[in-house]
């Protein structure tokens, strides 16, 4: 079942709050992980792992460098959710 933009954003907000201590309401789609949210590559690994648990979508290490903003992750999760 495809998830909506809002559902994924909300789920990501919870994850980022837990992993990096950034309040969920500050997690908006336009935010850059490194520049706006002060989230480094190690936290990105944790976020990817938690996203895998929550959304059932695997995000391998080599994809992480392409996910620069919150919206990038939402797009990735939604894109992967589309069945072949």
């Amino acid at each position, binding site marked *: 079942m495809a998830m909506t933009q809002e559902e994924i954003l909300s789920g990501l907000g919870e994850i980022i709050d837990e992993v990096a201590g950034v309040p969920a309401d500050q997690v908006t789609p336009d935010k850059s992980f490194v520049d706006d949210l002060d989230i480094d590559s*190690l936290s990105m690994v944790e976020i990817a792992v938690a996203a895998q648990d929550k959304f059932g979508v695997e995000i391998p*290490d080599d994809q992480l460098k392409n996910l620069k903003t919150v919206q990038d992750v939402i797009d990735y999760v939604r894109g992967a959710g589309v069945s072949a």
Partner: protein
Amino acid sequence: MRLTEAAPGARILAFGGYQPAKVVTNDDLAVSVDTTDEWIRSRVGIASRRIAGPDETVADMAVAAGGKALAASGLAASDIDLVIVATCTAEAPIPNVAASVATRLGIVAPGAYDLNAACAGFCYALGTASDAVRVGSSRHVLVIGAEKLSQWVDWTDRSTCIIFADGAGAAVVGPSDGDTGPGIGPVVWGSDGTMADKIFIKDRNSFIIQEGQAVFRWATTALHPVAKKACERAGIDPTELAAFVPHQANLRIIEAIARRLGAPQARVADDIVHAGNTSSASIPLALSRMIERGEIGSGDAVLLLGFGAGISYAAQVIKVP
């Protein structure tokens, strides 16, 4: 056949730790390698580490830590009948470090062997020591984790030279009595050989190499179930733990595992800040210092979790002596 010398359980009598004298700060490293104090503190958590002298050996450090633990235990050298040295950085393949350490400490003719499970070495060694005492193969065991990682590090490689360091920690293990109950829980151990290429030293003329990101991902996901199982096997709920002392690999890994442990009240060891990653020495070194500072007290339940190259891992709950 009967086990004539079996004990109802095993316990730790005392700890001892040793750090070499030379302090190397992040700023010291930033002189010759492209890094900063801020970057190291935030990514790894280390502020300073100790590096052994050029002629200071793994055995030297093992003797120092072992001697302290022995003295603190109140036992005589003649009471020790087994010496185990957990190490993966010994200078020579044979003879082992343990037999020489025993002789230097005045321990006569004990069983003696080295154990290589990399950064899980101390937990593995402690498990085998505990089992030996329980079944009666040994009465008192000196268990030491001692490493000189600095002699295997490429000091121009900023991904490793900021992390690895030298030191030793030791514990004296003996029998517990039927009244107070065991002081060392069963080990939960395992391995993943499919990740053998993630942390390795190719041969005796090579440097340590690790794939940090892959190790980080594995450690932060695969280990908290092992930790919880070790509690379960010891009949301890995570909420009863006074402390959690994982291998001091990287403060971010430590924090990530701690977050998933279900033990918010437990003090989480952060000895890495002023010790660096000392492989199998890190857990006993952290424990000896936490006890010295009064951060954990006699009778406290503490969860130990070793993990590293192999990949190998082992966890058990202990009671603080």
